[in-house]
């Protein structure tokens, strides 16, 4: 494998990681502040993608579609938080897992009922089409570069929000001591609804961004959801910094694993078998990584006990 290809694959891994981060950020934020495991996060991702596809189909404007994805996911987030989720904060994780699992069933089939059984069309905007030549002669998709930039911007924005603003201060206070912040007169239920809506909007945005280069279909949220869980567990649940580190680690491991392992195996096995075995191992690699991290750091890389 040439150096150029290797660098390109590292870039791909980085880009995959950033895509995962967009999804994982909301998940880890919601867990950090409210202590809630939200399996339905993948459904909000799907809602974002469907809203974007519907609006893009109607208006032809990608920016409008992105805004629609943010708004739609946030609105659904608020509705779900106020009707269901807020009853779960005091429950144990088991109840949260089951209730949000039930939400997945409802959201998926309701989406299919509304939009039909066939995948929807969502394309990247004309201005972001095509490739650019990076230093070193690497030809890289402009849209993927944009995703990397948006992801990093979101990471920076979240960092500023949490460390520099008043809302952020309350969020941090809520993470540390839920009882105390209520006692200080902060309307905790409004804060929780806001945080949940923010997490939902992030999921919706990433659904729309990713939907433009993937398939907008029912059930698109669940595979990403599991990956996002792997990411936040590796990073330490509740830590935005951890989510970013975990996402990039997972993105790199997965991308490099699936390109390098078959090559590695073909050095001592015959062609077809090496590809099969190498790919089989590669598909398990991130779970092995996660198990490995947890065995040595049971609360993830940046998690606190």
């Amino acid at each position, binding site marked *: 494998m040439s150096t150029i290809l290797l660098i390109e694959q590292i870039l791909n891994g980085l880009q995959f990681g950033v895509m995962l981060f967009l999804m994982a950020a909301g998940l880890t934020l919601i*867990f950090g502040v409210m202590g809630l*495991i939200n399996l339905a996060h993948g459904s909000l991702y799907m809602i974002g993608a469907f809203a974007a596809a519907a609006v893009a189909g109607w208006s032809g404007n990608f920016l409008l579609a992105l805004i629609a994805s943010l708004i739609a996911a946030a609105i659904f987030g608020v509705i779900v938080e106020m009707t*269901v989720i807020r*009853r*779960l904060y005091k*429950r144990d*994780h*088991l*109840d949260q*897992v*089951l*209730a949000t*699992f*039930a*939400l*997945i*069933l*409802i959201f*998926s*089939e*309701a989406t*299919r*009922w509304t939009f039909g059984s066939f995948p929807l069309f969502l394309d990247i905007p004309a201005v972001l089409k095509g490739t650019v030549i990076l230093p070193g002669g690497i030809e890289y998709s402009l849209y993927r570069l944009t995703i990397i930039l948006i992801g990093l911007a979101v990471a920076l924005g979240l960092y500023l929000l949490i460390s520099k603003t008043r809302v952020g201060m309350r969020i941090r206070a809520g993470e540390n001591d839920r009882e105390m912040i209520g006692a200080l007169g902060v309307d905790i239920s409004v804060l929780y609804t806001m945080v949940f809506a923010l997490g939902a909007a992030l999921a919706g945005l990433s659904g729309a961004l990713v939907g433009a280069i993937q398939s907008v279909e029912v059930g698109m949220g669940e595979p990403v959801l*599991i990956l996002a*869980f*792997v990411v936040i*567990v590796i990073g330490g*649940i509740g830590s935005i910094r951890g989510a970013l580190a975990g996402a990039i680690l997972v993105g790199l491991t997965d991308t490099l694993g699936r390109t390098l392992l078959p090559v590695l195996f073909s050095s001592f096995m015959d062609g077809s078998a090496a590809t*099969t075995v190498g*790919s*089989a191992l590669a*598909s*398990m690699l991130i*779970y*092995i990584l*996660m*198990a490995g991290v*947890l*065995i040595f750091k*049971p*609360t*993830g890389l940046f*998690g606190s006990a």
Partner: protein
Amino acid sequence: MIREGTLNIVILCLLVAVPAYAYVMNEPFTITLATRAVIFALAGVGLNLALGQGGLVSFGHAAYFGMGGYAMGILASHAQNYDPIFDGAFLIEGTNSMPVIWVVAVVSSALLALLIGALSLRTSGVYFIMVTLAFGQMFYYFAISWPAYGGEDGLSIYVRNQFPGLNTLDPIQFFGICFAILCLVLLFVDRLNKSPFGLALNGAHQNEERARTVGINVYKLRLVAFVISGAITGLAGALFADLNRFVSPTMFSWAISGEIMIFIILGGVARLFGPVVGAAVYILLEHFLGGLSDYWFIYLGAILLGMVLFAKGGIIGKLAKKETHHGG
């Protein structure tokens, strides 16, 4: 409100009455459904030991369910093709004898649970949920892409395996086998829960610190519970494979882990008969809602959601009086 013990007897009677009625009315499919419920109940009883008594929320019990299934699939497919599993210094043949398959299923899933448990129990809380999920996914992807035993296509076993003296292809006789196993396991788990081991396990769940201070090795205690739990679920997997005469990687999927969990929560966490009621109700819902609409998952989701939000303690918790020794 009735006593939980009385309720349990009613449940067992119903579980026998339905297939018995179906047998008289010549409705073999109803017997198949009841068998499915009994097998899922067994899987749930296994998980309930870890989850209910031990407070170990495993989101990866599909790994043991699948392991049990593949123990059956691999042994039976070798027997079906008259092709030894291992032919080297010594010979290992496949088999179509149910008792042998059960032993292999129990031992292999117990070993797997030992391995996964030993690593996962280093973590706790959400991390434990997620790391067990990760191990489940690992086996799922392995089973899909490993070509030796069919990969995603799975393995078809054309004839159900044999049990001495019985015709296992007869639905009512196979139901009898599964029901007997469920009763034996329930009896075993009941004794276990009331033993010093079970009390210590529950104690460590209620208050880990106190358990430590009285000198209990919590890690070891939980590991043993986790292994027994995995072994029971593995046994259920072997029976499930025999019911369908088919195994496939979907037995390893996270949806199965979720379903087994649902049985427990529907019925009542840490209740001996919780998973039994939960599995039966789930099968009934699946059967009747499926006929209502193409979008019946919406109804199923709504019912589950309602159960979690408004019926804490599950069905048994609603029907039975509180009994003091149960935690949850």
